[in-house]
């Protein structure tokens, strides 16, 4: 997706509005001028640190009067001045060359001074939109807008930074265009103030600070901390030396940061539902507001670490293509749909995420999935001979198939329930190790997009598993057929569907990675033909659906939907 790498930088500025096809395109806009500062403040801080430290030290040691004199002072100031000018110039250039454009079905971002880069994403392939506010950006009232596309979370399209109301407005517009809703009926969802009561958005639940703190203290981290402390104590008692106490220091630091990460990301958690999707806000210092459209959730897991059994709490995490599987705190916070909720709150969230559970008795089924054992509510559990492999969790390990989803539950101490909608199954596998073969057991693995959930039905009877594989492949197939379209609100509005398939789709048709390009005349049509090749490496441009509505009449200055601007949106508290 690099457009014209290493173009001469000088030819570009000033041509903001008159790019390739002059006049036919919406204008290219720039991000907020302060943004390089917000992003690059660390460089300035480092500079200030190195200069300031010497000064401060010399004040303390030498009484404050040994500033370099004469020429030395001149050169120092000059060097500092040059450094500042260079940094400021770099900031300015990077800001100057970063521009974005929103057309009816694409968002494009250009950046780079020497190596120019253009990245674009098709709106109907946007998986989720986040508005992220790091602390410094919050002070300036700025926000970063991130569009996730399905590529394992490696390259979101980012706009950093915009003014918060602009970011919200843009999000509303993008979701509106992406959902395929008619613009005229879109006034409900285009939210202004992000914080409180946005029209068309209903708060579903909010977690109190005490709940978050308690859930962090009772989390699985605490179990590991107790184990670590016990190990150190035992070691100290055995060796009789206090030296192993020193091992506590890194342990405490490690767990402290883990606790902090859980707490600050879960703080002030609120979930609400709008017609564009589920909206989740959280964060203490850095805040984020995520919007996940319906049907973008590939799999979800309800989990309960052992200590939460006391309070009866559960967490929900989800796989959304594009959020990726990073193990750091940030990505785990992004994939958390509920940090800690009672079973009633879990059911409320599940009702949003799995609107059609495909069963008569959803409450009974999900409750049995979360903390039931045995064949209650229709679960098929491991046969008795599986006790050799998992004596405790045998009666928990099991699965249940509803009309719309496969539920798999396992774990005795660390309980979890995984839900995979049939239409979201990517591929399936049966796995069997040597011991399991002796016991005639097998695992069914459902492959999902990268994320914290790796759905798996463990240790079921081999024949059952084989049959399940077969049926599940069938079910996934039929479910896929009647799946929602990419533009999920399309069916509702009077269509703006223009039938012509994409003459204007500039599909950047990345060639499949890997050496062997198909010979000419192969199944992959050349770029620029009507259908972008399904074999393209990037899912967004590579859909087989002809992009609907892309036959724009040429001058399409997409009008922003009416936004109510009565109140300046306040920050996330």
């Amino acid at each position, binding site marked *: 997706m690099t457009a014209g790498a290493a173009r001469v930088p000088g030819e570009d500025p000033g041509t903001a509005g008159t790019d390739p096809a002059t006049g036919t395109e919406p204008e290219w806009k720039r991000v907020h001028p302060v943004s390089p500062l917000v992003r690059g403040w660390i460089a300035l801080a480092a500079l200030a640190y190195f200069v300031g430290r010497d000064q401060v030290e010399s004040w303390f040691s030498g009484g404050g009067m040994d500033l370099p004199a004469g020429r030395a002072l001149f050169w120092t100031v000059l060097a500092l001045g040059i450094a500042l000018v260079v940094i400021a110039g770099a900031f300015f250039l990077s800001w100057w060359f970063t521009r974005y454009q929103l057309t009816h079905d694409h968002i494009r971002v250009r950046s780079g001074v020497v190596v120019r880069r253009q990245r674009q994403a098709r709106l109907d392939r946007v998986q989720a939109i986040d508005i992220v506010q790091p602390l410094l950006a919050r002070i300036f009232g700025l926000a970063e807008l991130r569009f996730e596309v399905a590529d394992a979370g490696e390259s979101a399209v980012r706009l950093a930074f915009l003014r918060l109301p602009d970011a919200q407005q843009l999000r509303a517009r993008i979701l509106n265009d992406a959902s395929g809703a008619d613009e005229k009926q879109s006034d409900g969802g285009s939210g202004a103030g992000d914080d409180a009561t946005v029209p068309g958005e209903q708060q579903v639940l909010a977690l109190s600070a005490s709940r978050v703190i308690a859930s962090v203290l009772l989390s699985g981290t605490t179990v590991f901390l107790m184990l670590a402390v016990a190990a150190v104590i035992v070691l100290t008692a055995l060796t009789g030396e206090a030296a192993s106490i020193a091992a506590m220091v890194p342990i405490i630091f490690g767990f402290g940061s883990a606790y902090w990460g859980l707490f600050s990301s879960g703080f002030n958690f609120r979930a609400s539902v709008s017609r564009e999707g589920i909206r989740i806000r959280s964060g203490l210092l850095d805040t984020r507001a995520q919007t996940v459209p319906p049907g973008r959730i590939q799999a979800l897991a309800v989990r309960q670490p052992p200590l939460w059994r006391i309070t009866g709490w559960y967490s929900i995490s989800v796989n959304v293509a594009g959020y990726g599987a990073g193990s750091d705190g940030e990505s785990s916070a992004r994939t958390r749909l509920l940090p800690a909720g009672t079973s009633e709150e879990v059911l409320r969230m599940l009702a949003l995420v799995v609107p059609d559970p495909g069963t008569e008795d959803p409450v009974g089924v999900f409750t049995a999935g979360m903390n039931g054992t045995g064949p209650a509510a229709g679960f098929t559990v491991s046969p008795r001979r599986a006790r050799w492999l998992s004596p405790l969790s045998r009666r928990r390990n099991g699965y249940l198939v509803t009309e719309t989803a496969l539920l798999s539950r396992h774990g005795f101490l660390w309980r979890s329930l995984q839900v995979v909608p049939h239409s979201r199954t990517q591929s399936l596998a049966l796995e069997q190790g040597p011991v399991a073969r002796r016991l005639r057991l097998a695992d069914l693995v459902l492959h999902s997009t990268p994320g914290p959930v790796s759905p798996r039905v463990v240790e079921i009877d081999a024949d059952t598993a084989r049959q399940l594989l077969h049926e599940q492949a069938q079910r996934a197939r039929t479910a896929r057929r009647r799946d929602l379209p990419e533009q999920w609100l399309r069916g509702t509005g009077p269509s703006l569907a223009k039938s012509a398939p994409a003459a204007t789709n500039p599909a950047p048709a990345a060639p*499949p990675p890997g050496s062997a390009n198909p010979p000419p005349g192969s199944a992959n049509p050349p770029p620029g033909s009507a259908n972008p090749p399904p074999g393209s490496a990037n*899912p967004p441009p590579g859909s087989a659906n002809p992009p609907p509505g892309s036959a724009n009449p040429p001058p399409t200055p997409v009008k922003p939907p009416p936004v109510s601007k009565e109140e300046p949106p306040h920050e996330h508290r």
Partner: protein
Amino acid sequence: MPSEAIDPSAVQWQRVSPKYLRLRLLSWGIETVITLVVTGLPLVLRLTGIWPGYPAWLAWGLPIFFAVTLLWRGLLLPRQVRAIGYAERNEDLLLRRGIFFQRTLVVPYGRMQYVDVAVGPLERAFGLCTLKLHTAAPGTNAGIAGLPTDEGARLREHLSARGEAQLAGL
């Protein structure tokens, strides 16, 4: 090819080229030689008296350990290669592999994002190639190694055509 316990019934497995076994044996041989030379070096040094301080149990134990493991792996190779199978069905592609740890994989054509064919230098010498299917899930991990080149090309075209006809969204 015998059908194993977890394989779907009534599937005619296609086998990979018999040349693939030779390829695997060749690369196994190269690996064995290199490993034994590296791990046996201290033993030689010790026996020739250049490095007498090296512990004897390590000098003998290390190469013997590696020799045994490698020999075991070499003995498994023919069966491992024989255990690889694939079958094209109407709606999906079936893959299987493994003797001890078996896996049977179903990849629906509609889920394939792209198909990849790779040929390494050794494979080129044997006229083989490796075909990989990619879905949006990294866990899919569906590769067929040791296909004859023309069969690989045919399969790639076939799969891409099938995938294109049935491609679903994510």
